[in-house]
């Protein structure tokens, strides 16, 4: 009796929708012309993207000397952005794969959009290491294939190479998972549209879907298998990202808790980004019945949980550094809290540890303005977490004569703005051309036609 708890917590989708209404609600938004607000939004985001494209071209032509890096701080803004974007992607996989395995039915309203964010975020993340290579046109050298370059071969012992494999695998599986989930909805669009290139595209992308029992059976089997594959992948990606740091011998980087701490942090930051964008989409696209306070509340609870894990990791690292009696370890952590870059540390703590605590209160979880503000603050806090880990661990190393500061150049900031432009542009295009809500899946959790127990 899987619907019994629904009798206690109420229906997932409000308004007692019939399946036909769901199709209409989701598809009609796509069939209408874009709203004014959409044009304004895409004008802004594509301008940001253009700025990013120009600065990337400039960096590639001039070299990464255009960045604020120096001998001591060899990794800073770009790697911060890389880890930030990779992290954003993780919530999508959590919602679409992990919560699917946990039979969390509320995921159906958000999984499509969240997983689109995964794909877009991974694309944004990939840009930064590519630029950092200095000669991005040689990026294919990362792939181990028989070549004529003699003994020049990638270093299999480097976590940076594992990163390349992990992220490309993750991207491939996420894209497949997203697309497979999209097939029934593409068929719905195909059947609704009367003509034009959109119908042709939907026709092609729905792969001859006919909605038969056999088709559904195959679909569900593949979906479950992909969910099972995506779950270890999402853990592996941020684990390996954490190894980029933790395998080194730098105090503040080399700490064994980093893998699960990074995974939890990634889900934390990704969930806050999902909330930020979905709260906007909910309002502007009129999806209040599909993305209810209950959905937002569930995501807020995930923020408390993952934020708590991150907070425990901060505490463990700090106490373990004191416990170690190792001067360098102790200094690395005291320097974070009291050194010249301490402002970034305190932004991190206040945004990631203190801010989510307000979500313990039900009034806060059901106030969309509060949730929106909290989600923005967590996005900021998680960006600064990566900045703190990367830059404050580097800028004062073993030799005091090496100590230096770090400030990003305008080029670096413009690149970050450009990556946001890319992300938002892709997301806005997604909202226009793809059903934002998984129509077929939501139809499975409707309360319409089901008698409640009371």
């Amino acid at each position, binding site marked *: *009796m*899987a619907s*019994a*708890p629904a009798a*206690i*917590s109420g229906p997932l989708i409000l308004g007692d929708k019939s399946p036909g209404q769901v199709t209409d609600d989701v598809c009609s938004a796509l069939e209408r012309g874009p709203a004014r607000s959409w044009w304004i939004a895409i004008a802004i985001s594509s301008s940001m993207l253009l700025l990013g494209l120009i600065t990337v071209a400039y960096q590639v032509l001039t070299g990464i000397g255009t960045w604020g890096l120096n001998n001591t701080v060899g990794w800073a803004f770009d790697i911060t952005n890389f880890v930030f974007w990779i992290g954003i992607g993780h919530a999508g996989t959590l919602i679409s794969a992990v919560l699917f*395995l946990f*039979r969390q039915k509320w995921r159906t309203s958000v999984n499509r959009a969240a997983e689109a964010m995964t794909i877009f975020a991974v694309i944004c993340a990939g840009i930064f290491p590519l630029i950092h290579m200095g000669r991005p046109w040689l990026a294919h050298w990362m792939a181990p294939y028989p070549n004529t370059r003699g003994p020049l071969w990638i270093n299999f012992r480097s976590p940076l190479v594992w990163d390349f494999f992990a992220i490309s695998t993750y991207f491939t599986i996420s894209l497949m998972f997203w697309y497979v989930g999209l097939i029934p909805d593409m068929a719905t669009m195909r059947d609704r549209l009367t003509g034009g290139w959109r119908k042709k595209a939907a026709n092609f992308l729905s792969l001859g879907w006919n909605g038969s029992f056999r088709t559904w059976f195959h679909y569900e089997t593949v979906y479950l298998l992909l969910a099972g594959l995506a779950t*270890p992948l999402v*853990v592996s990606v941020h*684990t390996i990202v954490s*190894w980029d740091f*933790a*395998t*080194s*011998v730098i105090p503040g980087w*080399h*700490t*064994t*808790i*980093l*893998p*699960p701490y990074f995974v939890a942090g990634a889900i934390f930051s990704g969930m806050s980004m999902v909330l930020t964008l979905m709260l906007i989409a909910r309002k502007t696209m009129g999806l209040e019945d599909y993305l209810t306070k209950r959905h937002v509340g569930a995501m807020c609870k995930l923020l408390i949980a993952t934020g*708590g*894990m991150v907070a*425990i*990791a901060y*505490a*463990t*690292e700090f*106490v*373990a550094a*004191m*416990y*170690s*009696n190792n001067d360098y370890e*102790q200094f690395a952590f005291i320097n974070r809290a009291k050194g010249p870059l301490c402002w970034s540390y305190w932004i991190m703590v206040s945004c990631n540890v203190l801010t989510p605590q307000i979500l*313990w209160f039900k009034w806060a979880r059901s106030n969309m303005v509060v949730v929106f503000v909290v989600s923005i603050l967590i996005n900021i806090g998680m960006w600064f977490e990566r900045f703190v880990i990367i830059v404050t661990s580097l800028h004062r190393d073993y030799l005091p004569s090496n100590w230096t500061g770090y400030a990003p150049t305008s080029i670096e900031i413009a690149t970050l703005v450009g990556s946001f432009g890319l992300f938002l542009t892709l997301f806005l295009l997604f909202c226009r051309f793809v059903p934002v809500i998984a129509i077929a899946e939501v139809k499975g959790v409707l309360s319409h036609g089901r008698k409640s*127990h009371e």
Partner: protein
Amino acid sequence: MTPQHRVAPVSNRWSPSFKPSARAYAVFKWLAIVGAVTFALGLLFTPQRALSSLLLVSVGLLGMGLGAALFIAFQYVCGAHWAVAIRRVPEAMCGILPWAALGILFTLLVGKSLYPWTTDHAVGMKGIILSYPAVLTRTVVFLAIWLLLVRAIVRRSRLQDTAGDPSLSVSNTRLSALFLVVFGLTFWMASFDWVMSLEPEWYSTMYGVYHFAGLFLGALAAMIILAVWLQRVGPLRDVLTPEHLHDMGKMLFAFSTFWMYIWFSEYMLIWYADFPEETGHFVRRQTGGWGPLFVANMVVTWLLPFFILLPKQVKRNPNMLVKVAAMILFGRWLDLYLLIYPASVGHESVTFGAVELGMAVGAPGVFALVFIRSFRSSAPVPVADPLLTASLNHHQ
């Protein structure tokens, strides 16, 4: 038959008449006696080994109780219904907590010889963190808070049987959230104090997570064995279905893999960075005859369970599931043995004899006796829980 009707036969049957067979009872009793006698004799003749074993079984049993409490708390906090029908199993497992807490206190009070920092005092910040009064205070405070919170949750769940008040579920949800927060803030420090400080020069930030992974995995394995046993001997007949087992099996699979993930992450990072002060911990556990046990730990806790539990049929088959759970419990003992013995007894050679064997079999005996007494003191299912019907009729 409407769902509501299924509750009635169960609630009629829940008179505390359930009694394990006299033979089973005798076995548990004798196991406990063997454990107690070996401990007493061990304390006289080889105190270091007896106290190390006491630490081992106390941490292991405390893990059973805490893992069960975490399971209950997760269920409440997530609003999950599927495991409500078998919740009395983890609730009764919590009964071991006071006894395990006594074991840990005894170890710290009598077994100062296990901890090098009690005689060879550390300096600096480590000296402040690892001072005897500080460790003892933390131990008492942590144990007291955990015991109080777990007791409050179990008491409310049982009170609901007679009071029938659904609001008790709400207050238990709040207490569960509080317990999870408190556990998260304290447990890693406790694992530093009790086990990691056996090698005071070594430290790893992953240590608390590693202990949590083992603790929860062990508790799940024990819960599966106990639930299947109670289904066979009576109280959970018609309650525990293959659907419940399937979910428990999935969790066992997931947490076995989680344990391996944490194990590997810690090992890999220490191996890769290759700091002598960090690698020593693993070197001591791979030389002097410990190597085969070091590998066996991974084989029984993850490698075999992973492949055996992959097919759906195995997770729904009580016989197979119990065997895998038993193997994981053996792995749990081996894991703690590997964490404690090379540090406190000696890493030059493997020490295993009557003391270790006696106490290793005594611990499950004590645990079973406490469990049975605790389980018998309430209804076998939470009869008035609002989610019980949903749980009894649970389908994937």
